[in-house]
């Protein structure tokens, strides 16, 4: 327990000292929010439903954070720890590998949460957005979505031979997903073919789920999203436990 606390605290410090990951998790989504906000204000975007633009963007950008964190820092950190012999050094101590994994999950989950809180706070203070949903069901959906995306990161780190390939594959998966899933731009504005393609992207289900919960829909209306994400989470746990290697 003492080692989990220390390890988590250490990993949190290391996360914040890494300028790229803290920028993309904490600063970049806020920047996007203010850029879109300065264009539209909180008026409904052209061609969209009656929901205010910023209100629609907050859950979408939260999905963006989840996608970026799950694929970039999680994948790169774990793969690099193995490649650089950091896990090798840990292996000579009595520490349990689960502590190493758990500290990672706790830290990235905390960072994702902070990213979301910053978005919500900025939305409330600057644009007076309304939140029509249930805070607990939103938190639940957010937790499920985050963990299932960390699972993707763990899988990539586990099955890719080097940190470099893991990073490249993560980027190749991430960028189309950010653009096509509705995380950066509303899906309703995309042509039908693109919308069809996006049904194959896991991040689409995060966007659907969080957007729905934000406007007050219940979990019952998002069973498909939940099933897809829960399936990913399960797969992530199984594969990352099976593929865990110290070196």
């Amino acid at each position, binding site marked *: 327990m*003492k*080692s989990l*606390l*220390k*390890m988590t605290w*250490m990993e949190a*410090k*290391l996360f914040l*000292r*890494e300028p790229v990951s803290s920028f993309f998790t904490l600063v970049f989504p806020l920047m996007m929010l203010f850029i879109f906000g300065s264009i539209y204000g909180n008026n409904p975007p052209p061609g969209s439903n009656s929901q205010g633009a910023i209100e629609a963007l907050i859950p979408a950008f939260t999905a963006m954070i989840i996608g970026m964190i799950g694929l970039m820092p999680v994948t790169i950190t774990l793969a690099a*720890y193995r490649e*650089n*012999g*950091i896990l*090798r*050094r840990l*292996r*000579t*101590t*009595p*520490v349990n590998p689960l502590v190493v994994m758990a500290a990672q999950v706790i830290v990235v989950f905390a960072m994702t949460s902070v990213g979301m809180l910053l978005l919500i706070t900025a939305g409330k203070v600057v644009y007076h957005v309304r939140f029509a949903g249930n805070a607990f069901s939103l938190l639940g959906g957010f937790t499920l979505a985050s963990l299932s995306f960390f699972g993707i990161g763990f899988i990539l780190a586990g099955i890719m031979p080097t940190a470099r390939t893991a990073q490249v594959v993560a980027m190749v998966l991430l960028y189309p997903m950010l653009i096509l899933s509705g995380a950066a731009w509303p899906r309703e504005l995309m042509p039908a073919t693109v919308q069809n393609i996006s049904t194959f992207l896991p991040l689409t289900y995060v966007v659907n789920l969080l957007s729905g919960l934000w406007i007050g829909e219940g979990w019952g209306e998002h069973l498909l999203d939940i099933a897809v994400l829960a399936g990913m989470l399960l797969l992530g746990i199984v594969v990352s436990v099976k593929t865990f290697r110290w070196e």
Partner: protein
Amino acid sequence: MDPIVQVEGLRKVYGSTVAVDEVSFEVHDGEIFGMVGPNGAGKTTTIECLEGLRKPDAGYVRVLGVDPQRDGQILRLRTGMQLQQSNLQDRMRVWEALDLYASFYPKTADWRELMAQLGLEEKRDTAFSKLSGGQKQRLFIALALLPDPQLVFLDELTTGLDPQARHAIWDLVRDVKARGKTVLLTTHFMEEAERLCDRVAILDHGRIVALDTPEALIRNLGVEERIVFNLNGKLPEGFENALSGKIRIETQGDRVIIHANNGRKVPLVSEVVNLLTREEIPFRDLRTEQPTLEDVFLSLTGREMKE
């Protein structure tokens, strides 16, 4: 008292390459035991089998009385390991590494004291990636000493360090021994093994070719010692016969090299200097060349040690 480490008939094969074969030795309480040999001789494979990081294909291994494969956790609690290839996170600071690693053990030495003893106090807040090679190794020694272990493994501790840093590390290893700990180290520097180790196993192609104290290895092999000096002119006739024992004299222009078998009653150097002085032969730049473990390796394997 039982030996700290017991190895009998250790064998490890990678594919069709036999990395370690028929390796047997014991390490006793409180000694510095070294495994020395060229790269690829099987040193690291052997030490990693003892650490529980690799599974031997055959042989009997006991470390602190336990089987590293079955009771690895006991070893991880009671030994300190410094690995040949390992790192810490680039942005982790020295004190943070010590503090974090200390949390893995139920009982540890005081890491602040260790930090001071290993001369890392000034580097307390320095990130791992900003440390020099010698400082990184000192930090790894500190981490290895954290659990206050009975046995410390040091694998290629000084590889890649400049001579000054290397000498500083040697002093630290002697300190570790002075604390009553047993040290098992590997190195491919013969000089390091000779200066540091109480006993040395010389490995070549996965086998132990010799095992003894460095002095005994050098003495028993009967490797020659040499006296080298420069002359103005020539040595007088009969100089050779005036020296005791079996010797051989070689001249290269002004330079004279006297070869003699090691382990004589009267030291060769005093005999030669006395004779030169008595005969009033002016000489300069006289030096002796003692045989080293390097010579032992050469005579055992017929090859020079290469880096």
